[in-house]
């Protein structure tokens, strides 16, 4: 940078300083800085929930920041609205389309800025301009077609065309290639190159390394709403980027777990799910050890264990539990086969918040004769059992008649864990077990897993927290794009190897 000092760098087109945004107590953005120069393509990189969407929404005026300054084209901008943003040349293309399905492509392009003559729509002029724009973009689009008749890819093209109608100085693209074919993608890349040469600044959100490599000038990494670092794309490596994106070095003492791998408890062959989130996966987990599954958000790791438990539809493949084939999994049958699932989202899928802790903990055992005879609850048994279990888990305060909604995140997870101790189980599927709970509670959850494994159970841990799965698991699968990218044991089980396998497929794809 020092070398460039005498070149007097041009003032950035967009300069954000200390931008913060809160949503009902959650800090979505925490003092984020961002510079985008004219003619530059600036990639925003980060996991889901890192704050990329919030940031581009702030830039495009969807919601105002709580604090921080916003300069665009050298001007101090306050009280930005989406209309004003467009009028000063900030044009966003979001993943959620802003198109009106019942209107044509052309009507959508000119929506809110129709060309009129004496108050009457000037259809011919609009048709001419729409056709000219679409031709220039090289898109294969018919301006007179209704949007709801278009494929997703064509809707995406319409959205991009809409953003480029009129004067654009800063174009925001949120994962624009997600629904485009190779050919359409290369068209888009050509277009991006042309815009850059016309001095348009671009903010580009993408997870795809290949695109970042092909397009980016600079990359800003966000994590947990914070600006981690801005790097030059040319001099940064893939693993550096990913480490910045995911790498959370928590100084947390993980318990030392003695793994004694025994028979295979869960065996999955060629599993493919209906939504394609898991494809041709072969996977097994043994009793007496923790099997970890790592991967980025959206790689299919949660869906894999959810399918085993029976809450994601399967199209093909076989599952065996303790050697026996398990067709058509469903939660109650899974529990009867000794398989329990602990969901990542405990509010949505785990707990009935306005019901007492007791009922939440006993929810999974209502089919057992110990808890109900001829459909009549044995409430005394229920009360003493749950009381004992929750004391064992050190619920504080130990009152099982309080509602689950009154509990902190850590205590809610304890209520979920309570279910593990109320019936005979041999396989425990943990989905993001430490999400939303404090450090102390995390330790208790890890200790709990340790006790399960050392008592001979099979435990599968799915986690986006790399240090967590690395430390807990004896054998670690790495998933990427719905497939198993690597299976690591012993000394191979390192952060570098996990990160490397995130991208192995990309490299293969590029060679192919």
């Amino acid at each position, binding site marked *: 940078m020092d070398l460039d000092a005498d070149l007097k760098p041009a003032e950035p087109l967009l300069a954000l300083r200390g931008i913060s945004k809160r949503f009902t107590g959650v800090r979505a953005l925490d003092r984020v800085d961002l510079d985008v120069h004219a003619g530059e393509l600036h990639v925003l990189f980060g996991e889901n929930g890192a704050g990329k969407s919030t940031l581009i929404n702030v830039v495009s005026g969807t919601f105002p920041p709580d604090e921080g300054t916003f300069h665009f084209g050298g001007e101090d901008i306050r009280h930005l609205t989406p209309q004003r943003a467009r009028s000063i040349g900030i044009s966003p293309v979001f993943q959620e389309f802003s198109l009106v399905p019942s209107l044509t492509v052309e009507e959508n392009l000119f929506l809110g800025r129709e060309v009129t003559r004496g108050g009457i729509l000037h259809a011919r002029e609009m048709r001419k301009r729409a056709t000219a724009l679409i031709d220039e973009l090289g898109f294969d689009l018919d301006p007179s077609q209704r949007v709801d008749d278009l494929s997703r890819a064509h809707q995406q093209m319409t959205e991009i065309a809409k953003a480029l109608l009129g004067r654009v100085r800063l174009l925001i693209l949120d994962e624009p290639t997600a629904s485009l074919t190779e050919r359409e993608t290369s068209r888009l890349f050509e277009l991006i190159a042309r815009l850059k040469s016309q001095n348009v600044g671009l903010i580009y959100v993408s997870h795809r390394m290949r695109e970042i490599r092909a397009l980016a000038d600079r990359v800003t990494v966000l994590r947990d709403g914070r600006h981690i670092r801005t790097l030059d794309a040319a001099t940064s490596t893939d693993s550096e980027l990913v480490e910045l994106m995911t790498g959370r070095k928590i100084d947390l003492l993980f318990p030392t777990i003695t793994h004694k791998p025994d028979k295979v408890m869960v065996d999955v062959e060629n599993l493919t799910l209906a939504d394609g989130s898991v494809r041709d996966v072969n996977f097994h987990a043994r009793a007496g050890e923790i099997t970890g599954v790592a991967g980025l958000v959206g790689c299919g790791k949660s869906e894999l264990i959810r399918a085993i438990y029976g809450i994601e539809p399967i199209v093909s493949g076989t599952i065996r539990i303790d050697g026996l084939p398990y067709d058509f999994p*469903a*939660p109650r049958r899974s529990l009867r086969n000794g398989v329990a699932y602990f969901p990542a989202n405990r509010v949505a*899928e785990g707990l*009935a918040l306005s019901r007492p802790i007791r009922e939440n903990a006993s929810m*999974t055992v*209502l089919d057992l004769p110990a808890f109900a005879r001829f*459909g009549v609850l044995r409430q005394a048994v229920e009360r003493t059992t749950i009381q004992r279990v929750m004391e064992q888990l050190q619920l504080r*305060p130990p009152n099982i008649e309080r509602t689950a909604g009154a*509990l902190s995140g850590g205590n809610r997870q304890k209520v979920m864990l309570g279910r593990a101790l109320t019936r005979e189980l041999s396989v425990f599927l943990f989905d993001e077990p430490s999400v939303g709970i404090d450090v102390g509670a995390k330790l208790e959850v890890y200790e709990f897993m340790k006790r399960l494994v050392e008592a001979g159970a099979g435990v599968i841990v799915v986690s986006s927290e790399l240090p967590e799965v690395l430390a807990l698991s004896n054998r670690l699968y790495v998933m990427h794009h719905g497939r198993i990218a690597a299976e690591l044991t012993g000394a191979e089980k390192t952060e570098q190897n996990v990160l490397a396998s995130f991208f192995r497929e990309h490299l293969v794809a590029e060679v192919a």
Partner: protein
Amino acid sequence: MTTEQSSHKNSFSSEWLWRAVLPIALVVLLLGFAAVDRSVLSPANLLNIAQQTSYLALFAMAQTVVILTRGFDLALGPAVSMVSVGTALAMAGATATGHDPSIVVLAGLGTGFGLGIACGLFNGVVIALLGVSPFVATLGSYNIAIGVATTLSAGRPVQGVPKLFSQLFYGGSIFGIPAAIIITLAIGLALHLMLSRTVFGRSLYIIGTNPRAAAVAGLPVKRILVATYVLCSTLAALGAIMMTARTGSGEPNLGGSLSLQAIAGAVVGGTSLAGGRGGVGTAVLGALFVTILSNGMNLTRIDGYIQMVVLGAIVIIGVLLDRLRLERRR
């Protein structure tokens, strides 16, 4: 931890306040009407109120069961009409073919409950298995039931309800307490035990609070929902049978505004349309409130159409109060 505890204590005391509101309102309402017309508080009228409440309470309980699971049954009223007509027709037919009175009554009960169960099965299957929203599904069966009731009866009251039937479900009494009150009390007690002491009852609350969590925890959500609608319609059929015994004929218009009245009773009593909250107590209290209100309005000669306005407003106010209560919790 301390904040958790104190917020808990707060919600606990406000919960009691909420519960006390309705009984107080009931007393105020009674006294208010009594100030206009003394006869409101006469023993004869109080017994009359109790008897009228017993019908509505039954229907409000039926609604409560489905509302607990986040559903509701708009078709309850027409189902009552359909059951009334069906029961009367079956009994008239059985009498005409020279059967014994007890066989005649059994034929009527079989037909009435059969129709009720069929209606509930239809609603339950369409809602739980086909995934149609309770509003649309029961709006559909609302019309179907009206159509069936009117077609079967040709739109006219069906005569031929035997004395024994009316005696059993209306005229009879034990220790001077009319049959309708006894039946409703017995059903209320049974339903209360079912809701609080059985796996089925527990499941209703859990499903209503968080259907997704219930499914993930392995509860057979769809099966339970079907059973819930069957239970609702069966209770409605019982109410229809009791009302048919009272009128002495099968009435194609018997159910008229009952759907709304029953929902009003449940909601005013404190059953939450958001699911998971309510019970026999709320249904009975709500039914008592609605009955006293209409009884008082009758005695003080408030126009029948104005009464409909009041009933409609009551439902909306009840729902708003429920939302207010849910928001206060957060």
